[in-house]
């Protein structure tokens, strides 16, 4: 399988600030790849390097088999981009902006354009200044999705959309995927990434700290267990792989890794378990594992990306 995006050892600095610090990222052809991280982690910087807007300091970047800086024009005929914060021309209508982008990219599918305008309930005759933030976002989404691009690069595309439109957007991304397009979806909305992505990369301080399918990630993550026992037990403390143990009378809560699960279950059984909840690690758990207790970016992480 060839890669739509292949990045290794990517470094980008802004003055003394290292926005990307040896980032690796692989997006296979035909997959929706979630690029997850809080603001300031380096998501937008990565996307802008992929688009040839910024020049990498070091590392290799391949986009659809080409060099995003050198082969920019032919590559951009094959991709479409939705910026994180869409700004429109005050005097141009949304429809004119959509057609401008389509034309620059080498044409768009008129039928699909009309269908998307209808699905997203977007009025193309308003002037740029008259659109709300959500509607500006929709203009860029319609422009990108009505192209014949092989790869969609989306930078927090649903910011400003209402929940109903978010659902519509997810529906459309699934449709794109079914048509064999690749999608690189940058986001900090866990639910969106969880719902759409085949594979996920978590970025922290300019590095990808974890990558794989949600199942793969869960495989080496911890399972949360809550149980009510027939008698109180302290035996669990000595089991390998058990952490975060809380015992409140007959009730226990703990997390356990894949290796210690069997042993833990037999201990529970021997204590006459009467109620049991086993929850697989959520994306939030995975995410929090890399980010500690906070989702907010550290202050010295800010400034690289809005």
């Amino acid at each position: 399988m060839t890669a739509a995006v292949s990045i290794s050892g990517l470094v980008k600095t802004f003055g003394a600030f290292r926005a990307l610090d040896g980032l690796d990222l692989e997006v296979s052809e035909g997959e929706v790849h979630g690029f997850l991280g809080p603001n300031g982690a380096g998501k937008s910087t990565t996307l802008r390097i992929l688009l040839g807007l910024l020049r990498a300091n070091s590392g290799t970047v391949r986009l659809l088999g080409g060099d995003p800086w050198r082969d920019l024009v032919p590559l951009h005929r094959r991709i479409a981009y939705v910026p994180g914060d869409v700004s429109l021309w005050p005097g141009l209508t949304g429809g004119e902006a959509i057609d401008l982008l389509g034309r620059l990219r080498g044409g768009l599918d008129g039928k699909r354009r009309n269908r998307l305008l209808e699905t997203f309930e977007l009025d193309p005759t308003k002037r740029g200044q008259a659109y709300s933030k959500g509607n500006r976002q929709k203009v860029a989404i319609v422009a990108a999705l009505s192209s014949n691009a092989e790869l969609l690069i989306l930078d927090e595309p649903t910011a400003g959309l209402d929940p109903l439109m978010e659902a519509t957007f997810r529906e459309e991304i699934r449709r794109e995927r079914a048509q064999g397009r690749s999608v690189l979806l940058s986001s900090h909305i866990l639910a969106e990434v969880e719902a759409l992505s085949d594979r996920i990369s978590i970025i922290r301080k300019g590095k990808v700290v974890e990558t794989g399918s949600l199942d793969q990630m869960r495989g080496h993550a911890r399972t949360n267990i809550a149980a009510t026992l027939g008698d109180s037990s302290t035996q669990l403390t000595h089991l390998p792989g058990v952490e975060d143990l809380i015992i409140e009378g007959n009730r226990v809560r703990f997390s356990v890794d894949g290796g210690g699960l069997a042993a833990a279950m037999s201990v529970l059984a021997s204590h006459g378990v009467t109620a049991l909840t086993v929850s697989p690690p959520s994306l939030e758990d995975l995410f929090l594992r890399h980010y500690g207790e906070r989702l907010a970016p550290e202050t010295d992480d800010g400034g690289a990306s809005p």
Partner: protein
Amino acid sequence: MNGQLTGTGALLRHAIRLDRWKLLPWLVIIGVFPLASFAAYGSLFSSQLEAVALQLSLGANPAFSLLFGPATDLTTAIGFVTWRVQMFGMFFAALMAIFTVTRHTRAAEDTGQAELLDSGVVGQHARLASAVVLAWLASALVGLLVGGSLAAGGAPPASAFALGAVLGGMGFAFAGIAAVTAQLGSAARAANTLAAAVLSACYLLRGLGDTLDDGEWLLWTNPMGWAEAIRPATEDDFRPLLLLVGTGLVSAALAAWLSTRRDFGLGIIPGRAGPPRGKLGIWSLTTRLNRGPFWTWGVTFAALGSIYGLVTTTMSSVFADNPFVKQMLAARATSEEQLTFAFVEVLLLVLAIIGGVCGIQLALRFYAEEEERRAEWVLSGALSRLGHFAPTVTVALLAPGVGMVIGSLALAATANASGSPVDARDIILQGLAELPALWLATAVAIAAVGLAPQLRAVAWLLLVYWLLLTMFGPILKAPDWMLATSPFHVVPNIMEANPDFAPLWWTAVIAVVLVVSGLLGYRRRDLVWT
């Protein structure tokens, strides 16, 4: 008004904090210009007779009254200042008030800042009230600055403050008018355009009132006419100021009433819908985005050229005997034709500097696209950096060139029509000789945008330096090598026996080098984003 104005004070303090640096340049320009004219009066006229002569020749030509207002009394310094600054000052004060009010009402709604403010403990009309009061304070400050500085400079206090009342009163009235247009327009730009249209209509009515026989009643139909009726230096009649203040108060109240009849973020006049489809490419986009500036600059060049052509003959004969002006213009001029041409040269120089302003502005608009993050989106299309920048470079070089040609043609045409001794062909050639200089000014901006946009202010600073050096360098006896650093200074005089065209080529070569390095620089650099 129960509680509807709650929070006005807090919002006003917030607005002042936001605006102090934005308002300062307006206040400085409106405040200093009258004083500068006042101080220059003594050196402009060597005798009372000269002033009377100018007043008579101005009075003989209705075009002057139409454009600048009547020259009622040029025999006193304050009368001269009134004539010089009243039109320009009234425009400035009104625009200052309009922009201030729109910025804190419609523009704040467009950007979403207003939503944040309105969610606080503020009354229904507090934000509007704070914007209008801020503009009123600024207008009052204009009046006091102008009056105070002139009075301190030695003008009769009553006349000085009458002129202050003309300018401040205009600001006061238009703050209210802008508050109304802010409720009408569909967005900030529409609101500003509406208010500016009202201002232009007033200017026109007032101009007709000043020039038409039996047209004086037209002066009483609009704020600009009322302001003029204060007539500083001759009548010092403060009663029309009440009309201006009344206009401000009544229209502000009207605006408050209108604001209850519209939705947040929308104007009473709905925004015009546009075409649902477009056929724009990057070239047509560039032209489209600059359509407004094209018209504004085109009209500016045509209007200035015509006015300059009109004044050439009058002015050069009035100033022929003034040693100061003569030294400034042409120490070597002997014949009347040469003296007039020296005067034309200065006017063309002013046009060329304005051409430089136009070119720099167009080039820097390209960077604004980048700052406002539209460039990022456009560049995600199949468009190289060169392909992105080339249309702007072309437009920024072409537009001021065309403007300069329009200005020179207009100047030549009106100068000839009003009986100037100078050959029209010479005027046009002299205008064309200014082209490399204004292209160099534009090229500096292009290079800055391409190579290092954070240094783009250099383009403005350099233009100001060139302007000061070329205009005042010779009088202040600046050394030749220093004068030669200005491309506007090295432009040869076409009327000379053997004009030296080599500096024009040098200027053009430097401009080409700068443009090329700007283009190459843009291809290499990171896109800026904020």
